[in-house]
């Protein structure tokens, strides 16, 4: 039986479900804005590059946290793995071509994600939280210990990254190449994630998040799906880390730390998780605020951030986008006929 034969095929719910993946009218807007940013604010391209990388990182977390519902505190482990892959290969003069470098970063991060996911995802709850945290801390310690390769606490700086496509130099002072390069990579990764979450695979992830027991009961390979999702998300986080290392031409232990993992979690939740564009909104709100506030009033920034998190957790679980959706629904609410 094909779906069209079903008597319910034109039911509003069925139509909405079948059209969920279609491109909506507003979806090109963020990309147009990102391109416009390049021309309007040439002075802030460094900030813009950092912002786009943060969005990419947050998208990777959204896949694993927002869709598969795996609460992890160790996402920065993969960011760091990608960054150090690019950094070590470039510093040792083994490989410094940017695009293939990203592929290698993704592969290394995915391998770590697959390996750790296979063992970690047997557990859940507090144990899983602790295990992700400990894995990240372990990687950080390992990077600190192997300072012959990683530069230890100081990290690796002035990485010799080859020009993009053999033509466009990465200039640390005028990061025009970096900005466009990161934007392109973000676009490719985003299209991948967007396709993934609307695919049957993505649907099964949502199912696992909503009701693991029932997904087991209907015969879905729950653990396999979770591990695969974890590895894919790790690969994207690895790309984010690798591109961060390329754009800044350095790597340090901060790429692996709890700070980075907590920040990206905050960003995602601020924007709203499990809705793709939450990463964009959250990153812009957070980065803009922190860029201008944290240097002027660091303590007030911390206090405000804490307050914001408490308020979000208590009253606005779906972040800024959730509030916006509520607003739209309120505007469109059916009004009583006069």
């Amino acid at each position, binding site marked *: 039986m094909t779906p069209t034969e079903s008597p319910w095929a034109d039911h509003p719910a069925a139509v909405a479900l079948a059209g969920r993946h279609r491109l909506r009218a507003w979806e090109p807007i963020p990309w147009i804005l990102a391109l416009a940013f390049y021309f309007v604010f040439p002075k802030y391209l460094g900030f813009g590059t950092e912002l786009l990388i943060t969005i990419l990182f947050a998208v990777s977390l959204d896949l694993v*946290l927002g869709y598969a519902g795996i*609460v992890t*505190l160790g996402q920065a482990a993969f960011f760091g793995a990608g960054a150090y892959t690019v950094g070590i290969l470039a510093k040792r003069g083994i490989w410094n071509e940017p695009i293939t470098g990203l592929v290698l970063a993704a592969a290394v991060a995915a391998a770590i994600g697959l390996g750790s996911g296979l*063992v*970690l995802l*047997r*557990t859940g*709850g*507090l*144990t899983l*939280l*602790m*295990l992700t*945290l*400990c*894995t990240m*801390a*372990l990687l950080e*310690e*390992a990077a600190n*210990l192997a300072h012959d390769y990683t530069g230890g606490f100081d990290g690796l700086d002035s990485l010799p990254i080859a020009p993009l496509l053999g033509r466009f130099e990465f200039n640390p002072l005028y990061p025009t190449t970096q900005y466009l390069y990161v934007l392109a990579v973000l676009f490719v990764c985003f299209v991948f994630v967007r396709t993934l979450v609307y695919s049957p695979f993505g649907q099964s992830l949502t199912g696992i998040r909503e009701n693991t027991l029932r997904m087991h009961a209907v015969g879905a390979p729950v653990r396999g799906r979770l591990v695969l999702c974890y590895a894919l998300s790790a690969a994207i986080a690895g790309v984010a880390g690798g591109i961060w290392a390329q754009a800044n031409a350095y790597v340090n232990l901060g790429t692996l730390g*709890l700070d980075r993992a*907590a920040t990206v*979690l*905050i960003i995602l*939740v601020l924007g709203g*998780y499990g809705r793709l564009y939450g990463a964009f909104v959250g990153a812009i709100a957070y980065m803009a605020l922190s860029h201008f506030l944290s240097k002027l009033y660091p*303590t*007030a920034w*911390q*206090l405000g*951030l*804490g*307050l*914001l*998190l*408490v*308020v*979000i*957790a*208590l009253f606005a*679980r779906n972040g800024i986008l959730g509030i916006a959706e509520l607003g739209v629904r309120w505007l469109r609410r059916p009004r009583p006929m006069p």
Partner: protein
Amino acid sequence: MIFGVDVASMLLGGVAAGMVLFIVSVGLSVTMGLMGFVNLAHGGFAMLGGYVIALTMKYWGLGFVPALLVGFVAIAALSAVLERLLYSRLYRAAELDQVLFTIGLVLMMIASVTVLVGPENQPLALPAFLRGQINLGIVQYRTYSVALIVVGILIVTGLWLAFDRTRTGAQIRAAVDNRRMAESLGINIGRLFTLTFAFGSGMAALGGGLGAEFLGLDPQYALKYLVYFLIVVAVGGLGRVTGVFYAALLIGVLDFTLKKYLPQGGTAFIYALTILLLLWRPHGLFGAKTT
């Protein structure tokens, strides 16, 4: 016997550190086991407690022991208010919301302390009778460490008795094992939660004050040692007083020994050990198999 003396002093130092770990973590374990609440703000309560203790000693001229009591009472009261007003709204919420809420709370605690007191390390002056060395027969050792061990043993005995022999203790154990059943038997879970939460946070405050001498005391304390507290709880098992005690001693001694003989890779070793332990027994060394 130089070797014996070395081992003895190593054990004493490690056990003293373990006692502080236990005093801070026991509340975290019980509240997590009882309420299933991932409370990342626990280290914050320890930090606040340490500040109350250090500052009352400095400005009010209180003695060490009265200051510890003041710290306990102040933080217990504060956390009871927080529990009633905020925590209790999130008992049935998703883990992620609890994590976010408590991270937010920690950030606010750190920022407030930084504004009110300052970001620098807060020295805590020990009273004269706890300074210096004490002769234990086989080995000379720091009086304070020995005092910590004695206090720790007293506390764990007291807690064990309270947990195992009193009516409230039985109610807590019942609620940890099967909350619904306990509720249907007429146990007032809400009151029990507030009580244990306040008590656990008070203990954390006590630990913050007792450990300030060698852990230091600055606003970042709340996050710096959080991983250690969580490791102790995860290894010891949720809601198990004795489990947490053994886990704290284990981690304390290991950390102390490794810092001395393997200052480079010591921390990595503890993380690796924790991962292996949790993979082997996801509910901790002493936790129940079914929760």
